């Protein structure tokens, strides 16, 4: 959501780490066959906290665009804002439908919920939609991702290399 890198360096770095964590967590949560149902449910629930941090780090952008949404705003920011809302709503639907069909988390908390097929199909549908929305979200922030990766991952790695190797890479 924060497109520029003018924010404090530590905040951008934290945001990058959190975003990578969310992405990996999402990929694992999307594959309950690999992780098992228990990890799938607990991991997805833990992602709520991480997503809250993600939103808090982008709060200034969210507040600014919310205020300007009715008035004049460039097309990309408007599209980006709507897309982020769709991601939020879809993510919430995934969580709710996941809780409703939960077989591990809810029973562990002592909550028994009645089975309803509607929740099951809604969970699948919203998860598939989330994948597409996440693709669009990633595409819209691609420049930020590339810049942040260069700045916080590739450049520090290159600095670790001996000077001669660095020249070779630069060449």
């Amino acid at each position, binding site marked *: 959501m924060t497109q520029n890198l003018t924010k404090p360096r530590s905040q951008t770095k934290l945001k990058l780490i959190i975003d990578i964590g969310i992405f990996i967590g999402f990929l694992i949560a999307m594959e309950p066959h690999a992780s*098992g149902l228990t990890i799938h449910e607990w991991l997805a629930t833990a992602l709520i906290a991480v997503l809250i941090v993600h939103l808090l780090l982008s*709060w200034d952008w969210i507040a600014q665009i919310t205020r300007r949404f009715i008035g004049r705003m460039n097309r990309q920011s408007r599209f980006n804002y709507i897309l982020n809302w769709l991601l939020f709503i879809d993510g919430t639907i995934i969580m709710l439908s996941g809780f409703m*069909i939960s*077989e591990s988390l809810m029973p562990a908390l002592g909550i028994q919920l009645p089975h309803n097929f509607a929740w099951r199909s809604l969970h699948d549908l919203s998860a598939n939609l989330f994948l597409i929305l996440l693709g*669009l979200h990633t595409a819209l922030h691609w420049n930020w991702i590339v810049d942040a990766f260069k700045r916080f991952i590739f450049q520090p790695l290159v600095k670790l290399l001996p000077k001669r190797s660095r020249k070779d890479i630069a060449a």
Partner: protein
Amino acid sequence: MKIVGRILIILAVFALVMGITYLIVNTRGSSAPGFEPGNERFSASNGAPLGFPGGGRNEFRGERGGGGWLLEALKNIAIIGIIVALIVVPKSWMQKRKKATQIPAG
């Protein structure tokens, strides 16, 4: 304090979306044929309750062995990658073209 307020706003919107979704699904579900009010579950035409086969969500019990899950994970990454490529590549191409046409004019 400011952060706590923001977290509460996020959680409030989260709860609101959850509440609306819950109402919609339950309203639509309870009007669907085969629904037993009060019990909140669907039943087959013979009255037997419907449930997940074997009493659970078997698709999560690892019957898809081998590297099937790895293929699925790669498929998810590929879908995201394709969407990103479909947007980023034409966009950067158009930006380069725009720059190229601006340089001779400038």
